[in-house]
């Protein structure tokens, strides 16, 4: 996607807010959660994924990225010992998403494997207040004239407008609300991975697709401003750099350029650790870089956990 997040914003009629919303910040700052003790565990978990997980010297990204993700989710899930309502979540892997919408007479569609999806039984409460939503009316969407906003999008002849609840689940599924999407860029070769800007755009598009499909399932197909906005979160990583995103769908009326806009809060390029040295680097018989994880940032893990707990705590 060419201009990254800016283009995605235009396509989904969204206003960008830097940083994470106040509700998530509140969870992070809540001392009752005991986030300090978890830091030690988070460090162990990062060391496990990056250093200890393999019988070879150093694991490759294809191995350590999913392992790191699984370990972080394991720590988050263990919190459900203290908060029993956390067990009302279910991870779904390899689910396909499909959602269509019209944007100024251009028909757009999001399709494909959307990574790992976590569903919950209860929806996330809206993050932005009503005033903020109404204030977005005055926000003007950025256009990049003369570049058409649909640059770099694949033009396909769509014969069936698919909207099958967006998620790939049948009716009656108890965990019906999409909570968080996880994207793991785990290709070994750097050119096969998405760059951070494109990763954020991809996260935005898929979060929007899921939210739109959920909104259509709840409120029907007509285009209008939603009474209860749908909130979907998204986390993307390549094993070291994390991108956090909270998306709130306020309106399904995407044809026109004015009116209430959707909101997205993005916290980008958060490093979980600086470097992970498997073998100590020795130059002229002096150890310059000792083995281990250096520059661990507990804040990034706190954000991960806060996004996980959001909606239940």
């Amino acid at each position, binding site marked *: 996607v060419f201009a990254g997040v800016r283009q995605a914003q235009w396509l989904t009629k969204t206003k960008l807010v830097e940083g994470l919303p106040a509700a998530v910040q509140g969870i992070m700052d809540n001392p009752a959660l005991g986030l300090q003790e978890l830091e030690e565990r988070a460090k*162990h978990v990062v060391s496990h994924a990056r250093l200890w997980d393999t*019988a070879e010297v150093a694991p490759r990204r294809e191995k350590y990225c999913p392992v790191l993700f699984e370990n972080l989710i394991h720590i988050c899930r263990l919190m459900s*010992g203290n908060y029993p309502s956390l067990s009302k979540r*279910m991870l*779904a892997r390899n689910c396909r998403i499909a959602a269509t919408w019209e944007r100024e007479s251009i028909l757009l569609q999001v399709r494909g494997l959307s990574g790992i999806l976590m569903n919950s039984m209860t929806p996330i409460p809206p993050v932005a207040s009503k005033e903020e939503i109404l204030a977005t009316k005055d926000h003007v969407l950025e256009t990049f004239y003369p570049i058409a906003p649909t640059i770099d999008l694949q033009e396909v002849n769509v014969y069936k407008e698919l909207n099958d609840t967006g998620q790939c689940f049948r009716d009656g599924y108890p*965990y019906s609300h999409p909570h968080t999407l996880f994207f793991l860029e785990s290709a070994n070769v750097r050119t096969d991975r998405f760059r951070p800007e494109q990763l954020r755009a991809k996260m935005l598009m898929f979060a929007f697709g899921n939210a739109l499909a959920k909104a259509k399932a709840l409120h029907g197909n007509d285009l209008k401003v939603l009474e209860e906005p749908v909130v979907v979160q998204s986390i993307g990583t390549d094993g070291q750099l994390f991108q956090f995103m909270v998306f709130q769908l306020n309106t399904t009326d995407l044809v026109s350029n004015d009116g209430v806009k959707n909101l997205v809060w993005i916290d980008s390029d958060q490093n979980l650790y600086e470097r992970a040295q498997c073998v100590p680097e020795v130059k002229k018989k002096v150890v310059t870089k000792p083995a281990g994880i250096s520059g661990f940032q507990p804040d990034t893990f706190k954000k991960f956990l806060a996004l996980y707990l959001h909606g239940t705590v």
Partner: protein
Amino acid sequence: MAALGAWRLLRPGRRWFSETVPGDPSPPSSPLYPPVVASATAKSKAAKSRRLQRFNQQVHAAATVEEKLRLYGKLQRPKYTVYPQTFALNADRWYRSFTRTVLVPGMPPRGAAAKPPVAAAGATLEAGRALEPGAEAPEVAEAPGVAEAPGAAAGAAPHVDIGELRSLACDALLQESFYQKKKRPFLYRDQDHTPGPFLTQLVSTLAASLSGRNPLLAASSLDLSPEVNYYWHHGEEVVVHGHRKGRVDPVRFQIDDNPHLQIRVPKQLPEVVPLESDLGDVPVIDHKPSKLPLFKKQYENKVFIGSKVADPCCYGHTQFHLLPDKLKRERFIRERLEDQIEVVYRSNGIASLFAWTAAQAMYQGFWSEADVTRPFVSQAVVTDGKYFAFFCYQLNTLALTAETIKNNPRKNICWGTDSKPLYDVVEDGNVKGFNDEVLLHLVHFLLNRPKEL
């Protein structure tokens, strides 16, 4: 050596005349001559034993565990690859003889492990912690009436909500098999399509919800598709062909295992029975291992529990194994080998658990010459998606080589159940015939922890 010999000839001459030289500078506390030992390089039995001794001393004196492991597996020779999931007939008897394991049917008696004066408290804890009143008969028989009343009274706190766990399990099952729209399974990859993800979901959600009750789980580490390897010697054979023909060599084995899921913990599980207990006999098989069939290959001798030595979670708790499509029940029934179905589960349990516990012991510095001083206990669940079999293994000895096994009375012990179905069928969004016993058993396993926690 020649120079030394000549010097020896000269010295007695001088000594003869200077016996009474006063003020002998070095009092003869240290021996005058270097010890007379066999050569280290000659082609003789004495030289071979000297080389072995030197190797043992080297490994004993290794500074770190990684160094020990490296020296232990340094010499590469052709070895038998033992596969835990195998279609070989009666493989569990062979595996028991390779690993010196006694198979005890049924599960280890948990209450019996507590000593008699603590029996009441231990049994109370057991009854209150694990069961709803009036559930499994053997446990209630072990803890007679005394435990019932305090158990029921204290039932509030350690009581396990079986209804909620059942709904979690059913949700996981339904999601994987019914609700999530998936493409058709790839050819012969049915296990990756539904039972694999179901097992992952089930274990992760159950472990998370039980972590409040078991602090060991709260500090655990969950591995998905880890690697577990172990290399050992057992018995002796004569080399059949090649440039080493005619020499007596130890029989080498290697297990390379990939459990579906594994839980590792920082503290060891408690012992089930004392170290020197004898609960049965180890089968003795007179044939060569290649008759099983087992084949030899030469490659790296790995000892690995799932993560490196530096990991604080270095003890094992539970492993979960998924049987592949090749070993499904229908295939055995079609070929009229119904009795081999249980053999598959047993051989998987014994081999995988032996490899895991032995590798854990090696990570603590024990090896065949330095036998374990405390038993290592781990658990495993072997399943094909519907039928579950539970195993508990206690490693009492690592000394399986030809020299060390001569005076070794200890045997490893494996408790195992038969495979039972968790549910009958999944139809239209409902799970029919859900078996609570199997779920309870699984919960038992996950709640297992050292006494002090």
